[in-house]
């Protein structure tokens, strides 16, 4: 397979926009990426749209805003990982020489997602009905409690993740939340299910993000900025775990693949983006992605290792917690941030000398995607 460059990225500032639709967010993000790539829409040869719960074929509906041109347009749904899925498909289309120029974009307008909306299948709804009283957030609170029991994690350690990511977000003009918060703010925010307060969770929101990928020879014609290339791309699903028990998680397979493909290990990464929808997830990922032993994740946040300025910054754009999580575009917002950082254009949140960045994301239904970009 040939090498692929990411020549342009664009995104909207995630947030709540009553008047805007996914057509607006998608149009804005795609135009931004095309402009950043210095390429015309009519030069794109295939397009992938990452979206979930946005109605029927959002890909073609959004691109009709630019004009359908006859190229294939495919919508992919992998829940939170939809944007990363679209990116991977676009990457594969160029890498396998199917096309020279591909567009990957994601859109989302998230209302409050109720468990009943996750599936309309009667068999799947059965357990949810019998378990009335249980929400997705419930599982994360129980995970926090279990970590506190098994590894001695403290509520402060989880809160520090929120404080760190909100600080990073305050340095990112595209982040949904621009105001830093303190440990006190986290502890005093509304209790949902103990010990999890509101500020341990990402908010819902709307937005779009996009990337243009192309072959190396085409890339040189369009951009003079340092070329950012895809060093690795992988995806996996969580294999069946006997008796439904937690164990080595869905993260590890895709992450292991990209470490192998790129020849880089965890500590070779200059920055990492993960699925920090809840503070506990980021600590779990320190371990699952191989940055420390099981149970040691709390130490990394305590010692500032994962702050911008630390040894390996995580969630440099604010992560899901601060930058936001409209689901469809999130994986591409991770790519956006990584490209901006590798180009040296991240301003006050710039990671010094960033050359290699990893984007890892999971989706409901046990899917996992990982990419490594390098300059």
């Amino acid at each position, binding site marked *: 397979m040939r090498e692929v460059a990411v020549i342009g990225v664009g995104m909207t500032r995630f947030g709540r926009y009553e008047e805007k639709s996914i057509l607006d967010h998608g149009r804005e993000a795609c135009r931004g990426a095309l402009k950043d790539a210095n390429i015309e829409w009519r030069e794109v040869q295939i397009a992938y749209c990452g979206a979930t719960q946005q109605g029927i074929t959002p890909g073609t509906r959004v691109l009709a805003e630019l004009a359908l041109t006859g190229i294939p347009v495919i919508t992919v749904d992998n829940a939170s990982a939809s944007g990363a899925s679209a990116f991977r498909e676009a990457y594969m289309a160029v890498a396998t020489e199917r096309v020279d120029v591909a567009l990957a974009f994601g859109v989302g307008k998230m209302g409050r997602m109720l468990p009943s909306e996750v599936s309309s299948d009667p068999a799947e709804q059965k357990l949810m009905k019998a*378990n*009335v009283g249980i929400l997705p957030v419930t599982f994360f609170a*129980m*995970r926090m*409690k279990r970590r506190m029991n098994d590894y001695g994690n403290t509520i402060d350690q989880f809160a520090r993740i929120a404080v760190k990511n909100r600080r990073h977000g305050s340095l990112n003009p595209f982040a949904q939340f621009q105001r830093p918060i303190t440990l006190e703010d986290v502890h005093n925010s509304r209790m949902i299910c*103990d010990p*999890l307060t509101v500020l341990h969770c990402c908010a819902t929101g709307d937005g779009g993000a996009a990337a243009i990928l192309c072959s190396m020879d085409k890339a040189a014609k369009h951009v003079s900025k340092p070329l950012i290339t895809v060093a690795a791309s992988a995806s996996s699903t969580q294999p069946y775990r006997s008796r439904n028990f937690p164990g080595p998680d869905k993260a590890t397979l895709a992450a292991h693949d990209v470490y192998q493909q790129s020849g880089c290990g965890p500590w070779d990464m200059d920055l990492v983006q993960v699925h920090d929808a809840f503070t506990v997830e980021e600590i779990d990922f320190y371990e699952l992605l191989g940055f420390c032993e099981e149970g040691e994740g709390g130490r990394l946040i305590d010692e500032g290792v994962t702050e911008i300025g630390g040894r390996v910054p995580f969630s440099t754009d604010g992560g899901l917690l601060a930058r936001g999580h409209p689901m469809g575009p999130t994986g591409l917002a991770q790519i956006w941030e990584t490209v901006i950082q590798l180009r040296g254009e991240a301003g006050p949140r710039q990671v010094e000398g960033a050359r290699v960045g990893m984007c890892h994301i999971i989706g409901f239904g046990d899917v996992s995607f990982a990419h490594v970009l390098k300059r």
Partner: protein
Amino acid sequence: MTTSKAEESGEAREGKKRIPIVSDLFTVPSSADDKPRLIGCRCQQCGEVFFPGRLICAQCGGEEMEEAFLGLRGNLYSYTVMRIPAPGYKGAIPYAVGEVELAEGLLVHSVLTECDPEKLQIGMPLEMVLAEVEKDEEGNEVVTYMFAPASYWGEQR
């Protein structure tokens, strides 16, 4: 749902019935001697156990499943106390939700009958009970399964 003790007998008060909130997921005992059980399945080829039941064994691919009655006892794997109601939840706030490790090794989830965090502890033994979610138009109790501190727990402490 309340946090008071759930009844074990099949007949509710005043001649009304106990109706499961969904069918074929758990049993509703008809006598006071029977305990409610979860209805899962066991693969006849490799012995793997599942809840809810399924048609194809995820462990070995076998397609011969037999019904398995689970959930008599378990341990509290983790829990949390909910301060906001989930949509459709009609019981008292706060209420506790537990992650329960069944004796068969399966992990299941349910509301707990006990919501005082002072009385909950990871590892404590639990037993399955049925509790009312709501009443239907005829006044019958619509029930689901929950887990309660095992009746012998108080004596052993």
